[in-house]
């Protein structure tokens, strides 16, 4: 073997190593900190929604794509919100499911953990119909409507994509539901609920 081959291979590997460190940090940061598309939520509870809302009762709605791994963190955060919310708040987790997919496609660990939430009602949202009515595009999107059906919070409740932990989305929501704040919003991190073609037709 020629004498210069080994040093050259090591120099190349060193360059790749240094470049990888910089590129990996940049790529991961970009991925984790880039929020999904924010909701265009109606200011009043959508009248066409199949979800029943009783007058005077607050309602919390979270949209979930069952195959979105980042939404594990959103469901985990929802648990933290429910623990600090009045028991009277009705909570609905809407699980996206395309009607042309095989039954059971939506049965994932994300949905299982949503089903284990206390005081949460898990509803299958065929083709994202309810998500459309609520104006949500991204898994993890959460809405809070007060007793009069007025929108008080729209946004995500995680700090980054797939990261559980204390964040202003979670604390704002807890403050609003406990009458310590009026309204709020927060970026939402997760997979898109709607496919590209559907989004374009909206």
């Amino acid at each position, binding site marked *: 073997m020629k004498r210069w081959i080994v040093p050259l291979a090591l120099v190349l590997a060193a360059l790749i190593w240094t470049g*990888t460190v910089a590129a990996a940090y940049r790529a991961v940061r970009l991925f984790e900190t880039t929020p999904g598309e924010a909701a265009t939520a109606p200011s009043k509870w959508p009248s066409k929604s199949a979800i029943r809302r009783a007058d005077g009762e607050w309602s919390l709605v979270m949209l979930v794509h069952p*195959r979105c791994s980042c939404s594990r963190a959103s469901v985990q955060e929802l648990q933290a919100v429910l623990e600090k919310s009045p028991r009277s708040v009705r909570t609905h987790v809407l699980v996206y499911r*395309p009607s042309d997919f095989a039954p059971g496609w939506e049965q994932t660990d994300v949905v299982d953990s949503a089903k284990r939430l206390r005081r949460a009602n898990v509803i299958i949202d065929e083709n994202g119909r309810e998500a459309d009515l609520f104006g949500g595009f991204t898994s993890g999107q959460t809405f809070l409507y007060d007793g009069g059906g007025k929108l008080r919070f729209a946004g995500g409740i995680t700090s980054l994509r797939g990261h559980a*932990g*204390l964040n202003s989305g979670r604390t704002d929501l807890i403050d609003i539901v406990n009458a310590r704040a009026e309204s709020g919003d927060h970026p939402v991190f997760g997979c898109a609920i709607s496919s590209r073609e*559907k989004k374009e037709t909206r």
Partner: protein
Amino acid sequence: MSAVAAVTNPGVAARAAELRDAQMLERRAKVDKMFALLLVVQYLAGIGAALFVSPYAWQGKERVLHMHVWVAILAGAGFALLPVLLAFLRPGKPLTRHVIAASQMLSSALLIHLSGGRIETHFHVFGSLAFLAFYLDWKVIITATVVVAADHFARGIFWPESVYGVANPEWWRFLEHAGWVVFEDIFLIWACIFSAREFGTIAVRQAEVEYLSEQEQLKSAALEMALAEIQPATA
């Protein structure tokens, strides 16, 4: 003072130093190979974890390979390439083990990220530090610690949620995390220095045994020569 430096016979001291260095080189070259294997296993485990935890990102019905899978494949390979090459092309050299230490810590950061920041995956950092102590070179522990602290410091400034879970941690929070690493470091560094000294002591004993054996052989040879000279005269 090291056991080798305390030896008064310069010949024994030189031989003890030679033995110690050779044994240390052999040990460190073996540890290099062990880490090369570990880095490859971690690389594959990282890809496996990414495929298991988050295989796809979704857009409605459409799916694409998740960013974590790409990061596991590309960044994992990038982190492992240089240390694995060094382990086989420059085994036992100081540069090799320092690059391995840095890469091992970067692998920890990658695995923590791929597991979604699970607290349990942080144990990888502490396990890795213990493995790095096999080199019996305390400077390697320092390199690893600096890489962990730099990772936390940089992310704490530009991207704090990813490492502390909150958006506005105190500026000194990285010191708290690094403090737990330093807690382990103190004992590992002590163990490295102590064990390296023991290597020296063993080398001195071996050199002394060799020296005494040589002296005995010289005495025997001299005695045989003297006997050979006496025997013809008496015959």
